[in-house]
């Protein structure tokens, strides 16, 4: 899957899949978990299936016996989990702002907030040099 196809909806879907790559999802479960609509979900699922990131299978039920149509569930493949993980890391790298961004100098409050977020993301305590900013 190309990076341009990694829309916010697709990213949320991948994150949902990657939380537990062995879990199977029905489409509506995935819609609720990833907070995407059917209009974004199905084209994205088709692309993921095209690239063998996920595989789909129909429920093994007899519609006449159950009185309802069979549902289709989706599961991430092992290779898909690996490639999706790499794709998300690459996307994350590509959207990271430059360290010299003037955005950091705009407001002291924002600086502190940004430093805190960065510290949390990196798992580091807020250093004294960051506090002075």
């Amino acid at each position, binding site marked *: 899957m190309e990076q341009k196809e990694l829309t916010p909806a697709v990213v949320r879907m991948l994150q949902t899949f990657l939380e537990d790559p062995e879990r199977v999802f*029905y*489409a*509506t479960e995935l819609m609720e978990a990833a907070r995407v*609509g*059917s*209009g*974004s979900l*199905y*084209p*994205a*699922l*088709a*692309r993921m*299936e*095209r*690239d063998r990131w996920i595989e*789909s299978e*129909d*429920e093994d039920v007899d519609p006449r016996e159950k009185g*309802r*149509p*069979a*549902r*289709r569930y989706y599961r991430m493949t092992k290779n898909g989990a690996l490639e999706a993980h790499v794709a998300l890391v690459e996307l994350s790298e590509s959207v990271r702002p430059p360290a010299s961004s003037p955005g950091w100098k705009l407001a002291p409050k924002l600086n502190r907030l940004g430093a805190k977020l960065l510290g949390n993301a990196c798992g580091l305590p807020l250093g004294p040099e960051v506090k002075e900013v």
Partner: protein
Amino acid sequence: MNTVMITQAAGAVTGHGWTWLNHDINGWTVALIVAIIAAFIYEAIMALTRMVTLRIPFLVLYLARIPTPATEWPHLFKAWKGELWAILNNREKHWLLRFFKGLAFATPLAFGAARATARATAEGLPAAKRKEAEGGDHRDAWILASAALSATLVVTATIYEGVGWVRGDRLPFAEVFSGIAVFIMLCDLLFTLPLLHPAKPDVTEVERRKGVK
């Protein structure tokens, strides 16, 4: 028995027996029967409303058949139908909520997502099967036919309205004509706008270029 006798007989009656809220037993019996019949009618109407309402999302979903290629439709529809059925038959939620959720599921598919899904599926196919799966020829034919139809309707409706205006009165069904024309025009626009996107290069063309390099 004349009127005088009736009046005398009525005057001789001192009371009407048991009453409550100024109505006797006969009045309350009639009220009870009417209430039971009204409750039955209400329940029947609500059941019918639920039945009809919960079918509407399926009708909307069937609209997705128009932009979806015939080769892809059975596979895609099977998945959508199962999910929509599950949404509409989730008894834990109120039927009106289920209806809106079903509609929210079916509407995007009917208006664009079905075609996008078919295209995404077709991208993985060999070039020969790809055009068939994207349904290019059928889609173009459908759009051309509906464009011709909407243009004819618009012209007809305009002439019809014009004749009515010249005559000084409104002709019957003028609004219906205009409404249908506008509706078909909107549908036409809906399916024509995606065509304005630049076409992706054919798979064979990409492979050929790679071979040249």
